[in-house]
């Protein structure tokens, strides 16, 4: 069992303490309230041991350091390639494995029609036109889906639960999350966001903040459609992320027929 975390050590302290309290009160004191206290301490000890086992061993500082390094590298890459267009988050069905983001080489905002899985390369052609070229990269959201039990479902409740589980429960990036979907837009309201990112960073301007990237990847994977982070507004300890869901024009035609 993992005892490397403070929860593990807390559990390891509480469990024997509870057993001592329980046995002493049962054998010597014959006091029911203290026996009950012993039982509750044992329960708390077991809970702490379980949480200690599921808690990551590496420190938050190390994670932040790694993330800052990766963001700086992506920044340099984007500036060197002069990529300014917002990233298009694609579901795994269009990337052959994991959900990824494509950074179009042309700057004009447009909605490419991607119908077949893209090759696993850095620079890929994603459209019928010769200028439909882009850089296909993994984002934070690409790898985070492994932390979920199963692939996110398409209902609003499932999407909201998955985003909340990841941002609040697993990553501790926010205090709460609300999701609403309608009219080809998904709005994710994050209350009490805890990770501050520089809005001047090229990586944040194109890929969005880590929270927005995670939300976009989950929505894209859940709906099986491409998603663009339209805007990200922070005010009064709340961040409102607006995601544009790109419908496949061919699918729309099929549904109309």
């Amino acid at each position, binding site marked *: 069992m993992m005892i490397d975390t403070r*929860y593990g050590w*807390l559990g390891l302290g509480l469990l024997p303490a509870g057993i001592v309290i329980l046995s002493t009160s049962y054998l010597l004191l014959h006091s*029911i*309230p203290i*026996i*009950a*206290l012993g*039982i*509750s301490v044992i*329960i*708390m000890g*077991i*809970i*702490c041991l*379980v*949480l200690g*086992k*599921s*808690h990551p061993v590496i420190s938050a500082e190390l994670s932040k350091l790694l993330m800052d390094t990766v963001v700086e590298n992506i920044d340099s890459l984007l500036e060197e390639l002069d990529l300014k267009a917002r990233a298009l988050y694609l579901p795994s069905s269009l990337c052959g494995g994991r959900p990824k983001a494509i950074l179009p080489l042309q700057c004009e905002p447009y909605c490419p029609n991607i119908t077949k899985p893209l090759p696993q390369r850095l620079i890929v052609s994603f459209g019928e036109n010769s200028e439909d070229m882009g850089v296909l990269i993994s984002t934070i959201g690409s790898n985070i889906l492994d*932390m*979920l*039990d199963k692939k996110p479902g398409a209902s609003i409740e499932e999407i909201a*639960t998955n985003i*909340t*589980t990841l941002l*609040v*429960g*697993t990553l*501790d990036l926010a205090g709460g999350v609300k999701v609403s979907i309608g009219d080809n837009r998904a709005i994710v309201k994050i209350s009490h966001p805890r990770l501050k990112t520089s809005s001047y960073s090229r990586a944040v301007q194109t890929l969005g903040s880590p929270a927005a990237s995670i939300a976009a990847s989950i929505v894209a994977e859940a709906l099986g459609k491409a998603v663009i982070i339209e805007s990200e507004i922070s005010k009064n300890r709340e961040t409102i992320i607006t995601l544009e869901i790109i419908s496949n024009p061919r699918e729309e035609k099929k549904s109309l027929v």
Partner: protein
Amino acid sequence: MRFYDSYIILMASLLLGITIIFSMVNETRLDLCFTVYLIVYLTVNELCLYLNPKARKGLNNVNYLLFAGFAFIVASNIAEILWQVNPVEIAWRIICARLP
């Protein structure tokens, strides 16, 4: 991890609060106390939906452990009603007899 901290503080406060209330009203039924603990534990777990899946799996295993305790209490109560024997006392006597 603030969410884990909040969960632990909430659970500890509730369990301690229940213990204090039971001692204030001179409640001496340990089975009732354990059942209330079990209910509180299950309720808090259901409210904390957003614990990460690994922690949730572990806490589900704790559910089974607590249910085993609850089943033991029910079984010992049934044995006491049917045959007027307390399995805990019998078990304790056996342990005492075997001790040097």
